[in-house]
């Protein structure tokens, strides 16, 4: 067997070369290139996802560096999407990268159409709900994740099949205070999002659908809660 960068994948019986090949034409859009996005993007790239789209409007700031592992002190002030693209090229030349230097909104979200799976790595509730709603409308599978202090939660949503955020949460605070983020929390959570994307494409294992994973790194607890689709939710009316 030829030893290339995916050799250890080929040795996994239910993954192998056949599943690896499926990733070559897999297109994943990562919305937000911050803490969640950094680790998700790095693992999507090293694992051979053929095309990665990155949406972010921000520049690298010194307060990003303890958790946003795509960036180094020499990147301060640079556009995140441009630094991320360069980083991916260094990691894996097989990956095609498309960057979007804007904030996703109701006027530009048609970029989602060109992707197979969306990763919500945004840092505010308005964007998370927007991604939920447009993914439901366009039937795009996606991974939600959010972090706070030592904690995070994540779930995978397959529109029309599994619970969306609006099925589960009926009263959501719109104001968003900065409570701080412990450096490793978005890293581990973004890796789970990348894992879900790869599992979706390859069909291996069980997706995190209709289940919410709560991660508590303060007490090192991982807890899965089962959640139920709401038959009256907007996601059922599409």
């Amino acid at each position, binding site marked *: 067997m030829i030893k290339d960068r995916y050799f250890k994948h080929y040795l996994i019986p239910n993954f192998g070369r056949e599943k690896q090949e499926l990733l070559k034409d897999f297109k994943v859009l990562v919305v937000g290139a911050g803490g969640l996005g950094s680790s998700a993007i790095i693992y999507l790239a090293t694992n051979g996802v053929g095309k990665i789209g990155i949406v972010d409007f921000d520049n690298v700031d010194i307060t990003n560096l303890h958790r946003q592992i795509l960036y180094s002190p020499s990147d301060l002030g640079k556009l995140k999407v441009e630094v991320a693209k360069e980083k991916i090229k260094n990691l894996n030349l097989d990956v095609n990268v498309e960057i979007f230097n804007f904030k996703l909104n109701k006027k530009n979200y048609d970029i989602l159409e060109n992707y197979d799976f969306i990763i919500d790595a945004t840092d505010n509730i308005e964007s998370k709900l927007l991604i939920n709603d447009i993914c439901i409308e366009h039937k795009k599978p996606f991974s939600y994740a959010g972090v706070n202090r030592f904690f995070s939660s994540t779930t995978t949503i397959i529109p029309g099949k599994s619970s969306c955020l609006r099925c589960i949460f009926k009263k*959501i605070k719109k104001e968003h205070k900065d409570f701080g983020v412990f450096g490793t929390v978005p890293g581990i959570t973004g890796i789970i999002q990348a894992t879900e994307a790869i599992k979706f494409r390859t069909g291996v294992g069980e997706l995190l659908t209709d289940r919410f994973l709560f991660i508590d790194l303060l007490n090192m607890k991982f807890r899965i*809660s089962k959640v139920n689709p709401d038959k009256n939710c907007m996601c059922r009316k599409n």
Partner: protein
Amino acid sequence: MKVKINDELKEIAENSKIIDILEAEEIIEPVAVDVFVNGEKVNFEDYESFKLKEGDEIEIVYLFASG
């Protein structure tokens, strides 16, 4: 009285309601929660009136907004 919150046994005041539990968990600071008591989802409109009883198993699902 003793109840279980996310699998952890906790002592809470008699006649506690769901809102009391959520306020006690404020260090987590979610933007939204989903609450189940003994496996049944509780509507958010009832968080202030739903009385908990000894032995209840409460499950709280958290939504966070940062990234």
